[in-house]
Each structure stands twice: as C-alpha cells, then as structure tokens.
C-alpha cells in the first residue's frame, strides 16, 4: 500500500480571537449572517474554525436574533 498522502490544511484561526474589534451582538444581524447556511442553519465550527467560546457566543446571539424575528428560524433570509 502506498503511504497515505498527507493533506496539508492551513490551521484555521478563530476570526473573533484574531480580530478583537469584532463584537458578537444579536442586534448586528449583518455579521451573524455569515455564519448561517442559505437555509438559515448555524454553520458548525469545524468549517470556520471558530474557537469554542466564540462559537458559543455566536450561537447564543443567533438564537436571540431569531427570537425577536431579526433572523429566520428556517428559510431564506431577506436582505
């Protein structure tokens, strides 16, 4: 068997840790929108490499925004 090909992946860094000026706030839907699929699901943190802390804060913010109808529970988000 040939040796397994090594796949190099760039280590993903949490963008909230890298840029402290980014604040996670449920009122700022524009920023949260990047972390949703087209269907309105929250994207898992393995995709963007968010750290656990910030992913937690983000999901919390998204869920709040959903509660007050700033974001959909499901389906497309209108601009």
């Amino acid at each position: 068997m040939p040796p397994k090909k090594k796949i190099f992946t760039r280590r993903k860094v949490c963008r909230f840790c890298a840029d402290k000026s980014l604040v996670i706030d449920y009122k700022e839907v524009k920023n949260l929108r990047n972390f949703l699929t087209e269907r309105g699901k929250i994207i898992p943190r393995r995709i963007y490499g968010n750290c656990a802390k910030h992913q937690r804060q983000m999901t919390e913010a998204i869920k709040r925004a959903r509660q007050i109808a700033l974001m959909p529970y499901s389906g497309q988000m209108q601009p």
Partner: protein
Amino acid sequence: MRRYETIFIINPSVGEDEITAIIDKTTSIIEEFDGSIVNLDHWGLKKLAYPIKKELQGYYVFAEYAGKPEAVAEVERIFKIDDRILKFMTIKTQDVFVADAPKAEAENTEATEEEAQADA
C-alpha cells in the same frame, strides 16, 4: 440595579400616537420602579424574519435601561396583556449597573447576560 435591554415589536397597523403612548407607558413603569432609561431607540418599521400574528412587518423599539427585576416583570406583564405588542424580549446585560459603559459593556455582555424572554 441591573442593566437590561428590551426590544419590543409593535403592530404596524396602530397609529403613531399609540406607538408613542405605549413607549411612554413603558418608560413610566420603569421610572416608577426607580429605574432610569439609558437609551431609547426607534428602529422603526422592519420586515419580520417570519410572520408573527399574521403580520409581516413590525415597528421595532429598543430600550436600554437600569432597573430592578420587578420592573422587568411588570413591563413584561403589561406587554403580555397588550394585543398591539407582537413580541418582546428582555436581556440582562449587567448584573450591577455601571452608568457609562456603552462600549465596554459589550465585553461583559456575553458573560453576565441572561435571558428573560416570553412569547407575546
């Protein structure tokens, strides 16, 4: 005193006068309980992400204030009774109210806040 923020959505079919009346009433309740309004913001008519009570649009009002838990309970009790309020949400941002920390508060927010939400 704690620092809270409340968002409530008013039915868009009610008039401008009624909207101001609702807001005045809310602020007076908060002040009755020795609270103080820090920031009152009319976001205005916004499209709802999903229909609430068959309405597709809502008039958003955002209020940030210092107050006691009893004030929040009273405000929410009134909101529940009022048909014109489509939905509301109150979030605690600080356990102990610090007067001027409009930006610094954002860091603490995630650590201390706690949700007190009820469906309209």
